[in-house]
């Protein structure tokens, strides 16, 4: 029962904050709601026993991505000052299509619900297993992620880095 309360509470909070992220007019506020949503997701991870992931979620997402987003929002302030940041043109079709998609996914999920096991097996902290996995079977993606991040950095630098000649 407590599980249920916790799930509905966190789930509700998540959806509300997520809804605010996509609807609130001020982009800066949206970023803050995003941080909240991501945090709630981390909490959900905790309830699911994924502690390591929860930590990563907070560190990487909130600590890096959202901060960076807010940073960029501040840098582009001159324009973002304008309050209306939602595009009216697409609201109705977007709402329609999202709702439709949601319904269809829900249909599929509910159809399959009977076969899903009722209660989860006993939890064990997977952190150690994750570590072993990263250096074992999944060492290749683990190594590749560094290339991924590296190229992301190289590209970002190449794109935003200022050319001296240009400034002169």
């Amino acid at each position, binding site marked *: 029962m407590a599980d*249920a309360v916790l*799930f509905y509470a966190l789930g509700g909070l*998540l*959806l509300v904050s*997520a809804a605010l*992220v*996509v*609807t609130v007019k001020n*982009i800066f506020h949206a*970023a803050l709601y*995003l941080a909240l*949503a*991501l945090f709630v*997701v981390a909490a*959900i991870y905790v309830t*699911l026993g*994924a502690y390591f*992931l929860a930590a990563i*979620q907070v560190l*990487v*997402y909130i600590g*890096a*991505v959202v901060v*960076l*987003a807010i940073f*960029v*929002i501040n*840098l*582009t302030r001159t*324009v*973002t000052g304008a309050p209306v940041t*939602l*595009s009216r043109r*697409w609201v109705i079709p*977007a*709402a329609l*299509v*999202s*709702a439709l998609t*949601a319904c269809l*996914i*829900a249909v599929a*999920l509910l159809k399959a*619900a009977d076969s*899903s*096991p*009722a*209660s*989860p*097996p006993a*939890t064990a902290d*997977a952190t150690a297993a*994750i570590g072993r996995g990263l250096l074992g079977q*999944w060492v290749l993606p683990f190594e590749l*992620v560094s290339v*991924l*991040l590296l190229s*992301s950095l190289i*590209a*970002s630098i190449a794109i935003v880095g200022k050319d001296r000649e240009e400034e002169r």
Partner: protein
Amino acid sequence: MTITLTHYLILGAALFCLGIYGAITRKNAIGILMSLELVFNAVNINLVAAARWQPDGGLRGQLFALFVIAAAAAESVLGLAIILAIYRRRVVVNADEMDLMKN
């Protein structure tokens, strides 16, 4: 009333669709990126929840989620960089004004 995997999956689906909605309706390019983060988080909720219900301790699901976070971060960084560069040149952050190319 027990919380089953399906509950989490429904939650994930709802988040996914909210993210999609945001990606379409957000005018600000940064907003679009943020909405897409919601999509990735929806995926991760699915993965982590499914991992919880796996008999093998759900290692793969959690690992998957981990890599998703990394990839999402990389994409966001690059996306923000490009937005910043566009802003510098054209003082534009609204995605619907980035339509020099069309038709």
